[in-house]
């Protein structure tokens, strides 16, 4: 049977294949927290830093491209370039995905042996396991000794940025520029005063408050866990609340038993609290959830009363001109500072080590940290900082409160922000939490967490 359709079909199939190939190859970076494959492309085309004649170009990669964090980082770079006219530091920023795009691009460059002179990375295991253990970074022991940082940074921070070598000697691998706190409970003040409630100090108090709020038609706790890390943060706060700072730290070193009764209690708390969250949590990002605390109009009832989020939430509220918010340490974690930090290290194959060390010295100094942190909304990691120059941007009410807490609290590393465990272990915890929020079964979650510790090579 011969039909003219055959030729048409042939042409059509080719056209269709071409069309579909085009549509599937044009894959832009996704909007949410999950990184897209475009990051690899970005890395390949990152332009070389430009410098005037006689100046040494120093390239620093960050993921700060907009808002206060970009303003702050540019301010500190300007200050450095003005003070060091022979050096030109440039910020090769890679936008998107809370740094995950930048991390993928950086990994490509480090693997290819052409890293930037320094780059932004979360302090702790994200740096240590990804870059330090495979031998891609130089230590910064000389900078720490020369600047007295071993006494200026709190012990909790020194523990997180350092690693022991085979002989047991401690080495420092990055300079923390800022400190964020993950365990903060944010609440709408009017909702609490008009219902005669006080912000909960424990998760038991939380349940009491939540019952009152739920009866009034207000979602007690707003969660936006698209990309799951917001629920992962809830879990880490539950673990701190039940285990305390030492017990929680022990989880990541193999000292605390993941199958123990206190972990079970924390997981049960987690399950209880998930009963008081908005039902659309899996389709929201953290900032959309935070916006649930903001009433549609003045005096209206907001959609939610509280949200548990890191202290970057203050910036979200300020951006939306919302002032009626209060904060306390997350329930059960008063006196514990669940910390994460952006830090900068020194790649072994950096081109301009002497010059970039000067820049790193400024990043770690009290003066440098007081330029950057008022913009970023974080607090300085250096305990001698906290006094910005007159005329420069000053610290906010929240930051002043947080600096006071920072000096008094015990410091623990955040899991979800790369400080506590290596990325594959964090991935395993997130996988278990993803299943748990859909089907909250405590024994399944606990078994997965126990297995995660074993797979990470920490637990036997």
């Amino acid at each position, binding site marked *: 049977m011969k039909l003219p359709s*055959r030729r048409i079909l042939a042409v059509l199939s080719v056209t269709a294949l071409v069309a579909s190939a085009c549509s599937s190859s044009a894959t832009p970076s996704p909007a949410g927290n999950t990184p897209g494959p475009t990051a690899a492309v970005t890395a390949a085309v990152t332009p070389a830093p430009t410098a005037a004649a006689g100046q040494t170009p120093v390239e620093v990669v960050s993921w700060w491209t907009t808002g206060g964090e970009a303003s702050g980082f540019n301010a500190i770079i300007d200050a450095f370039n003005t003070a060091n006219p022979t050096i030109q530091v440039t910020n090769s920023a890679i936008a998107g995905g809370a740094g995950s795009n930048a991390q993928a691009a950086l990994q490509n460059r480090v693997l290819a042996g052409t890293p930037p002179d320094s780059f932004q990375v979360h302090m702790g295991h994200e740096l240590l396991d990804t870059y330090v253990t495979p031998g891609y970074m130089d230590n910064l022991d000389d900078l720490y000794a020369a600047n007295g940082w071993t006494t200026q940074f709190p012990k909790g921070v020194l523990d997180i940025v350092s690693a022991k070598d085979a002989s047991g000697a401690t080495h420092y691998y990055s300079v923390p520029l800022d400190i964020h706190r993950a365990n903060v409970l944010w609440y709408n003040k009017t909702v609490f005063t008009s219902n005669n409630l006080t912000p909960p100090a424990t998760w038991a108090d939380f349940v009491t408050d939540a019952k009152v709020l739920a009866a009034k038609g207000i979602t007690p706790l707003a969660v936006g866990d698209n990309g799951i890390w917001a629920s992962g943060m809830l879990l880490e706060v539950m673990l701190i609340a039940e285990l305390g700072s030492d017990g929680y730290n022990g989880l990541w070193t193999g000292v605390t038993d993941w199958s123990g009764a206190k972990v079970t209690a924390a997981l049960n708390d987690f399950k209880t609290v998930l009963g008081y969250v908005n039902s659309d949590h899996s389709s929201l990002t953290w900032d959309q959830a935070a916006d649930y605390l903001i009433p549609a109009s003045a005096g209206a009832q907001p959609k939610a009363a509280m949200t548990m989020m890191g202290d970057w939430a203050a910036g979200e509220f300020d951006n939306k001109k919302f002032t009626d918010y209060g904060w306390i340490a997350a329930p059960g974690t008063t006196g514990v500072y669940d910390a994460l930090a952006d830090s900068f290290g020194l790649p072994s194959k950096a081109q301009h080590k002497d010059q970039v060390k000067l820049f790193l010295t400024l990043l770690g100094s009290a003066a440098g940290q007081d330029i950057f942190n008022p913009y970023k909304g974080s607090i300085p990691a250096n305990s001698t900082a906290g006094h910005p120059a007159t005329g420069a941007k000053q610290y906010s009410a929240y930051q002043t409160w947080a600096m006071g807490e920072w000096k008094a609290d015990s410091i623990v590393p955040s899991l979800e922000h790369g400080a506590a465990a290596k990325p*594959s272990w964090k991935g395993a915890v997130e996988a278990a939490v993803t299943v748990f929020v859909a089907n909250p079964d405590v024994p399944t979650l606990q078994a997965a967490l126990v297995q995660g510790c074993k797979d990470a090579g920490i637990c036997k």
Partner: protein
Amino acid sequence: MRISRDRVISLLVIAPSILAVAVFVYGLIFWTGYISTVKWDTLRPDYTPVGLANYQSIFANNRFLMDIRNTVVFTIFFIAASLAIGLLLANLIDRRIRGEGIFRSIIVFPMAVSFIVTGVVWRWILSPGQDAAHPQGVNQLFGLDPTSNRWLTDAHVVYIQPDSPVYGVLHDIGLGFITSPNIGVPIALLSIVLAAVWQMSGFVMILYLAGLRAIPEELKEAARVDGATEWRIFRHVVFPLLTPITLSAMIILGHISLKIYDLTVAMSGSGPGFATDTPALFMWQTTFRDGEFGRGAAVAIVMLVIVAFVVVPYLVWNRRQEVEA
């Protein structure tokens, strides 16, 4: 034997593309295959051979099994719905209605939109809203209750439950494995199917429309003379002649759905309980977030094999058709 001048020139002209494809497609496939058999589990390359350990580890990973389930379910629903809607639209447009060009363009236009844009918009439409008092998107439009119409956030998986009558029967005849939640239909995934069908059914319509227009009117006339009803003409004359179109459409849609990544990432990421997770997302996170390059390569190879199952028979069939013609 002398090789003609033409032949030399044609070989020279085609050589760059052959070389490029050999290196950048087949070379990298072999490289990925090799990486999938080595230890490489940090940023530092480590070529210690580990045999099939990476494959064992991903097939022992429940997330990966759910990803395979999602891929199969998505492919079946997406292809079936796109073909059905595309065929229906093509037949409606084929009535030679007024303004056909306008309708055709309107229906095909979604295909011109990037999957990422489709994903963002459908995410707004299919986000349910936080509770009964605050519906959003489609729930707001139709006055539905967000607590029972969960759309993208629905974590349920429909599978054969222990209280189902066939559960015992299946276990008795040794097919008990079918009753796992990993052999089921995640409800949230159907929302993704909805968006994908919206985007691609117009394309299927164009394929079918070309096929319909290529069918000689005489065949239908002959059937009418023989007293066939319009339905029987469609069923026994038109539809069989559309078979090659259907097959082409299935292959094109099939390879899109097996590789789907951007749409799910834009709409819901991994979704509640990995209801909308895909092997591509798992591969990306395993490789570039966790630094497990060997394991990520193993996922890539499994994806390649699955796609090959669909594409290779098509290529063979196509080749045979060409030889016959």
